[in-house]
């Protein structure tokens, strides 16, 4: 897409991950180009969240390699904390820090990890909060915010670190239906701005709108992938077809 597209933003090779005896990821290969938006779809338990958590090194992997840019973040002795700075993640349950104001939530990373002064960090935070219509909430604590507002703050918190890659883990699944749109609008804006993103989602319509590519995960492998129209309209694999039929039956596409 751009001149530096030669080095992908992310490369995942033969990734394996087990919890106890359950093998959740069974050899994932995934390459994401810079500015690309990839949607992960699949049934609950297919490994979408685990894959995202592995990419952010929140789970120790059992096999395979992960590269961000040209650096292998799963190399022995790699500086895990430094790599995490470059990869933002937004969780299904927001996970804002309840004892801190919105502003403190957003400035914690930039101040303590990037070493920004309080003034610089707050300027950066206010800019982002303003952009997403949250600036009047800056002094509020998370429990005073709606779910949609909390999730937008969580996105801003991740963006304040200026990550190269943003992971979104079913970020609308815990929201009341009427609050989903405001969060998806933020993601759409980020996609238009060229943010490289991987999103696990159950919102098929949204995935079709915003993603450059959709990957269907099934039992710990990427069974099928392709451009949204192709994958959603004419899936090749039988299991993909069955999954999409269930989604359509549930009225989510």
């Amino acid at each position, binding site marked *: 897409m751009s001149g530096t597209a030669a080095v992908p933003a992310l490369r995942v090779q033969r990734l394996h991950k087990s919890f106890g005896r359950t093998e959740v990821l069974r050899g994932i290969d995934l390459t994401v180009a810079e500015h690309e938006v990839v949607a992960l779809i699949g049934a609950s338990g297919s490994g979408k969240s685990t894959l995202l958590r592995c990419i952010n090194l929140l789970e120790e992997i059992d096999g395979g390699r992960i590269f961000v840019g040209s650096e292998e973040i799963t190399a022995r002795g790699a500086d895990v*904390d430094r790599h995490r*700075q470059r*990869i*933002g993640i937004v969780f299904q349950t927001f*996970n804002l*820090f309840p*004892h801190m104001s919105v502003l403190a939530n957003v400035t*914690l990373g930039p101040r303590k990890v990037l070493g920004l002064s309080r003034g610089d960090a707050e300027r950066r935070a206010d800019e982002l909060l303003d952009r997403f219509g949250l600036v009047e909430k800056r002094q509020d604590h998370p429990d005073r915010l709606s779910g949609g507002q909390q999730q937008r703050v969580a996105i801003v918190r991740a963006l304040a670190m200026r990550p190269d890659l943003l992971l979104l883990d079913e970020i609308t699944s815990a929201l009341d239906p009427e609050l989903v749109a405001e969060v998806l609008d933020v993601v759409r804006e980020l996609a238009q701005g060229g943010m490289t993103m991987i999103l696990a989602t159950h919102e098929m319509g949204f995935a079709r709108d915003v993603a450059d590519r959709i990957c269907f995960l099934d039992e710990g492998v990427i069974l099928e992938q392709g451009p949204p129209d192709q994958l959603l309209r004419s899936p090749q694999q039988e299991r993909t077809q069955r999954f999409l039929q269930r989604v359509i039956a549930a009225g989510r596409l």
Partner: protein
Amino acid sequence: MSGAADAESGKGEAADGPGPDADGHRPGVLIRRPRRGDPVVAVSVAVASTVLFFGAIAWAVVTAPDFPRVQRAFLNGPLFEESLPEVVRAFQTNIKLFLIAEVLVLFFGLVLAVMRSLPGPVFFPLRLLAVAYTDLLRGLPGILVIFLLGFGVPGLNIEGVPNDPFFWAVVALTMIYAAYVSEVYRAGIESVHPSQEAAARSLGLRRSQALRYVILPQAVRRIVPPLLNDFLGLQKDTVLVSFIGVVEIFRASQIKQAGNFNFTPYLATALVFIVVTVPLARLTDYLVTRSRRGQARGGFR
């Protein structure tokens, strides 16, 4: 106010609720109203039952066959007046003891809790040490620890080691209560959901930073009530150090008792403790109720 609201809603229910049954009761509504609806009735019943209950106990004590003897031994008015200022003066030593010990306990308790939560095989010896320490110190009767330290260590006559009983009293109380308080800290740390650490680490914070800025601030808020409970115990246990020669309130009342062949000074001491500990117990209860309400609301600040 809520009583009035209850009565109000009770009326509403009664008006359009189901009609009376065969016995003339309306199901649910009328049975509840007289009990919760009328505050005057509730208060009168409470007062009457309290007076009756404690009156009966007092009567049983006062009419006991040997009450006059006990009265002479424990309830000597002039001696009470004489000993109260003396035991209050001695209580200053207890205050000094528990204030110093509480600060040290807060610090060492946290150190132990953090030691015990260190991850990875490298830190196994530290974890083992922390576990052994808390098990041992919680397993021993406090008075034994105080005796062993207060008489044992100075008895070794090691150069430079203080033999001041007050010093060893502080050390012993700190060691005992740090073990309890470290468990309180640990419970607090573990009560913070792992997703909070994940969120902090995902920003690139180191484990120690996540602990300091995200986990401990939330943990500490939740452990204030159990912490105060342990401090209550510590404050009462300051009397135990009288046995290694610290002149504090219990020792002072003992001296006074021995000089007068009368137990009234102990009553004065009991009064002093009650004045200090009961408000703290009430505060602890209040904080527990408040934090429970806060959690039910879904927030905690």
